[in-house]
């Protein structure tokens, strides 16, 4: 794999990763405002 190819693949992966993470975060912000707080607390993890 040439350096050029490597950088291109890396940029694509980072871009896809950022898009997915941002979309996930936006979904969390929206859903968190509308969620049942009883369900939210019931599923909380306490280790």
């Amino acid at each position: 794999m040439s350096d050029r190819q490597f950088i291109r693949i890396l940029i694509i992966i980072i871009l896809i990763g950022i898009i997915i993470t941002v979309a996930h975060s936006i979904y969390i912000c929206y859903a968190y405002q509308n969620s049942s707080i009883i369900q939210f607390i019931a599923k909380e993890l306490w280790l």
Partner: protein
Amino acid sequence: MKKIIVIVTTVLLFVAVNAFFYITITSRLANNFSGTGQLKMVDVAQFLPFEEESELARTGSSLKFEKEDDLPVLDGAAALVPVYASVIENCYPEGTVTYEGGAFSDDNYYGENFAPDSVMQYQNTIRGFDALVDGSVDLFFTAHPSKEQMLSAQEKGVEIEIVPIGLEAFVFFVNKDNPVDGLTSEQIRSIYRGEITSWIEVGGASRPINPLTRIEGSGSQTMMDMFMEGNMINSRNPLSIFGGSIGYSFRYYLSGMVADENVKMLAVDGIYPDAENIRNGSYPITVNFYVVYRKDNHNPNVVRLVEWLLSDEGQAMIEACGYVGLPDEATKL
């Protein structure tokens, strides 16, 4: 080889971040986010009168309406559906709860399809109160109407009678594995003012507190605003979302309607919100719930039904629904 490792590590990094978000937050957001889902605070299908499998309080009644009587139409807030559906079950003749299309369905925007001639309606707090003021509903079961609702009725020249019929507690709750079992009123206020930010400050684990709030205008939020005496901060550390949450609601949602064994109610000022402590007034945040009607409603069965709700039979039914009845001295009209 080095390049492959960098690529794989980058992919794994994003997977790890999103998996962490999913496990700690996304998987807990279990609600249905559609418009219908938000309006559907209660599964009314579980509380339909005259259906054998309905979860109603069948305590019996000496007040029995006949089909030819002028039957009061009942409506109410989501949390009180079991109460007024049980009133119909005990006091009304069969065949008086009817549905558009002939059978119950909750598959439309507003959820339920009660027919216009049905004695049971379910329009929830805002639309239901408007229906009472407009005269299409005779009795409305609710927490105390808001100032805005009272003003709206006044502007339309409608006088409203508000009769307390039972007791309800405003409760705070946490996950069942949270080691804290109780808080003082002042600790709760400090948490929601952002002055106490970790559970360790109130005898719990070393973990941030995530103080959850409710939608503006909801019954719970109105009650919380009163409890906080208008001194509640709305901004907080976004990272507290990963902490241990505390929320608030009315007791009936937690003990009956949306009961979940993975949450526990907290004692407040050392008093646990059980029926006895609510009835004897020792639990510090206890409120009435009411039946409301227009003063100019000339249907005599409206007052008969209100009197029945305050009788021993009516109070027994309210208790069987999972609420707390009024103390004896409060049931005298």
